């Protein structure tokens, strides 16, 4: 195995273009190193952590956020500005692993690892986050929801690297939230994950995005769930419609972590709970 340390994303792309065999970019390594220990050692490992700026969290000109690809969960969860704007994204990232894992694990790694159960991905999708992708074909911006293609597969082309994560500006009176269901309290993989981001005008929901994890081969946006919320004051009727839409979404599977039936049920329960939290937060927000 060859270990490379590029000084820029352009160099990283060039290295990946010249390399042969299995090429992997290394962020926190909490997925990659575990897999390597199990025997899946890539031919070329390109470590992104030495590129200037990868640990930065910055305000963008439009009032959103730019997050470097090596920023670990622990830095994100301690960032007051991010916490105020996107508490749901921050709480989702904060659920990954344990204190030790938080010191390394990045949301971009979580996304590029392409697990259907990745915790930060539904929250990023609900938030409308995007990533900047750099490759032999140039630079492009891609919605987070368009990156995963299926378990362990992304829509990144050969040699493409994610160079930054972007969160949009938080809308006035907006709030987001994320919860997952696991049989334990931590160190577990989501049986279902649910994120809701919404904005309010007074008590009325004006905009909403609902995303679910572990209900399909990739995390998904549930339009029906979102429309169940818009125009309502989150009364029982809206919650019931939301819950039904969440339960009906996707095509969950039966596996050792839960049956499809159980996943559908829990998706409905979580959607309700998460919407209530997001609604509260939006009410408290300026």
């Amino acid at each position, binding site marked *: 195995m060859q270990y490379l340390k590029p000084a820029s994303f352009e160099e990283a792309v060039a290295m990946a273009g010249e390399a042969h065999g299995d090429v992997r970019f290394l962020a926190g390594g909490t997925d990659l190193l575990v897999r390597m220990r199990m025997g899946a050692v890539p031919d070329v490992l390109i470590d992104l952590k030495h590129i200037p700026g990868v640990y930065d969290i910055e305000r963008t000109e439009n009032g959103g956020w730019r997050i470097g690809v090596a920023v670990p969960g622990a830095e994100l969860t301690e960032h007051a500005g991010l916490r105020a704007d996107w508490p749901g994204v921050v709480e989702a990232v904060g659920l990954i692993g344990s204190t030790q894992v938080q010191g390394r694990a990045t949301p971009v790694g979580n996304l590029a690892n392409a697990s259907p159960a990745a915790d930060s991905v539904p929250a990023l999708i609900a938030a409308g986050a995007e990533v900047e992708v750099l490759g032999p074909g140039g630079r492009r911006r891609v919605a987070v929801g368009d990156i995963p293609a299926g378990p362990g597969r992304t829509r990144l082309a050969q040699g493409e690297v994610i160079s930054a994560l972007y969160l949009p500006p938080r809308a006035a009176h907006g709030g987001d939230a994320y919860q997952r*269901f696991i*049989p334990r309290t*931590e160190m577990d993989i989501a049986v279902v994950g649910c994120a809701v981001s919404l904005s309010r005008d007074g008590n009325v929901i004006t905009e909403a995005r609902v995303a679910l994890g572990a209900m399909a081969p990739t995390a998904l946006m549930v339009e029906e769930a979102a429309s169940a919320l818009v125009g309502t004051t989150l009364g029982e009727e809206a919650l019931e419609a939301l819950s039904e839409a969440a339960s009906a979404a996707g095509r969950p599977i039966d596996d050792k972590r*839960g049956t499809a039936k*159980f996943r559908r*049920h829990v998706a409905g*329960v979580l959607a309700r709970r998460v919407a209530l939290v997001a609604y509260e937060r939006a009410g408290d927000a300026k």
Partner: protein
Amino acid sequence: MALDEGKDVKGGHDAREYDHQGPFRHVGTRPDRPDGVDKVTGRAHFGADAYAPGMLHAAILRSPHAHARILKIDTSRAEALEGVKAVVTRADFAEGLEGEDWNILENIMAGEKALYDGHAVAAVAATSKFIARDALALIEVEYEILPHVTDVDEAMQPGAPVIREGAAEPGLPEGMHPNVVRYHESGHGDVEAGFAEADLVIQRHFATEATHQGYIEPHACLAQMGPDGRGDLWCTTQGHWNVQKLCASLLGVEASAIRVTASEIGGGFGGKTTVFIEPVAMALARKSGRPVKLVMSREEVFRASGPTSSASMDVRIGMKKDGTMTAAEGTFRLQGGAFPYAPMEFTAMCAFACYDLKHVRQRGFDVMTNRPKQAAYRAPGSPMAAFAVESVVDELCQKLGLDPIEVRLKNAAREGTRASYGPTYPRIGLVETLEAARAHPHYSAPLGPNQGRGIACGFWFNYGGETSVTLALSMDGTVQIAVGTPDIGGSRASMALMAAEELGIPYEDIRVTIADTASLGFNEISHGSRVTYASGLAVIKAARDAKRKLIARAADKWGIDPEAVEWRDGAAWPAGDNAGSFEPLTIREICAEMGATGGPIAGHYEATPEGAGVSFATHIVDAELDPETGKVTILRYTVVQDAGKAVHPSYVEGQFQGGAAQGIGWALNEEYIYGEDGRLQNPGFLDYRIPVASDLPMIDTVIVEVPNPGHPYGVRGVGETSICPPLAAVANAVSNAAGVRLRQLPMRPARILEALEAQTDGEG
């Protein structure tokens, strides 16, 4: 406790060893454990920390099939790979073995058939781990896949695939499937007459899944075998004499040819009482002439070490309106993998051991399936029995409107009770644990919505076993104790405390070492909660032996009879005015002169103590249920257990808490999940869910001390009983919170939701 067939499980009534009721100076205090600094600084050497010059790395090829005939193994391509120094298959082990030795050989290296997913079929030693792993891919195995069975009830059905023809022992009821290999029946009275006296009889079916001990340290060893046929083995184990015995037998050499040293151990809980990789490493070392290191991966630990049995059980109990139990009956079917000796007789014998029953009958069936060979796990067989029995007792109390502790007190076994499994109990402490539980503030604390409280009792035999200890005095009067029982729970501290008590010297003056197999007489495994009892008794006796010798030296010096000398505060004193007037001789003074006064001084003890006192516990637990998701949170947990005499109370409490934590995992989320293909689906800690720290409340403990007549200080083993009540206690708490009975473990969220749904459907 090992399944040593034919060995009596003693109640302890024949021993009268209890001779020191205190007051104690050292026993009962809480000094730091002597191995603590090494363990927290990383200096302690565990199984995988052994290295030798020229060492090779080994890897094992394992069957991907649950059941398959091995038609051919071709190792030639692997042997030809650069860096490969040896490849072994079954042909490299002894032939003509019988009984359990044959079973163990068959388990560590497959013969004609692969019997479970993960069964070893060949092994390689090479100059690096990577080469060894690559070599495995070059070994060609031709399998003929056979139908398999992994469920205990299915394995007993007519038409189930036969694991091994002719494995059944005599004494089985007629018409049993060949997978049923052993049968147990015991009890007394006339149960039907007893049930006729009852106001309410409840009969229920229960099932538990196999769980793993979940020790954090995987099996690991370093083996060496020279051209002279003499070898050394370093390994992580609960019993190195047993490793020596088994390796010698499986390799066809004499026991003394292999010296075994036990490393520090990162958890065992019964799972390290046998061998899995050690004979394989020895065979590779013998064939290659080089030291060979073999370390299991976590996946291998799950697939191919020794999990518990899974169980299918039926329990029937009759009760009068006043709470008197009139009769009890149980049938317990355990699968222990593709081999005999699932501990079903322990399940049967423990099931009703807490109760004074006129009419009781229990049956056990030992069933083979295509799973790994079960190994001991803390009180093997007992936790599932308690789950079934204590659940029925709880339901009876509920239906009759009776308090669960009062009912248990009314029926509790006491001194003189004829135990359900035969013997008459000597002094025991069940009643005292129930009384302490009733008096504990936990029992009367208020409960909130969706919360339930569960009570359960549990029983374990405890064990003695062959024990040998040497206590050597240094020239400066400090003491070095060699014991043969690996320290799996702080036992070095307890040994030092007992020796300090006897010799009247400071705890810090005593060093306790776990000796290798060449340095001490035979020692049974650290199992059966026997270490503080048996090695402790041996340390006390060895100290008394040394004391006698010290006294003789003083008597000699003073020119008086040894009977006229007494030992007090670490010194010899004239016993009274008649003895004469001499200044006391301290242990330091006597030892400084020992070379000239008769030679080195050491105390010894070798025996098989048989007075291990049985032990009982009562647990209280509060659980909260999220009725929308089926998720359970354990809110509060209290362990009340009889320790006889707590030598080091902190480590006794640690055992109480550890057993409760493991039991909570077993009850809620731990399970072996097999797919349709007979392959284990969850061989890792991500999907094999042991509780993490944040899943548990601080577990409260109450130590009850009802002395064991079989130990000089009254000590009873405490390591195993603590895992007997939790399955039942948690199930009772969850059932009470849910308003519906859960009779299948684990109580994972989806299963609880289904039970809630079934109840609603039933009502609607």
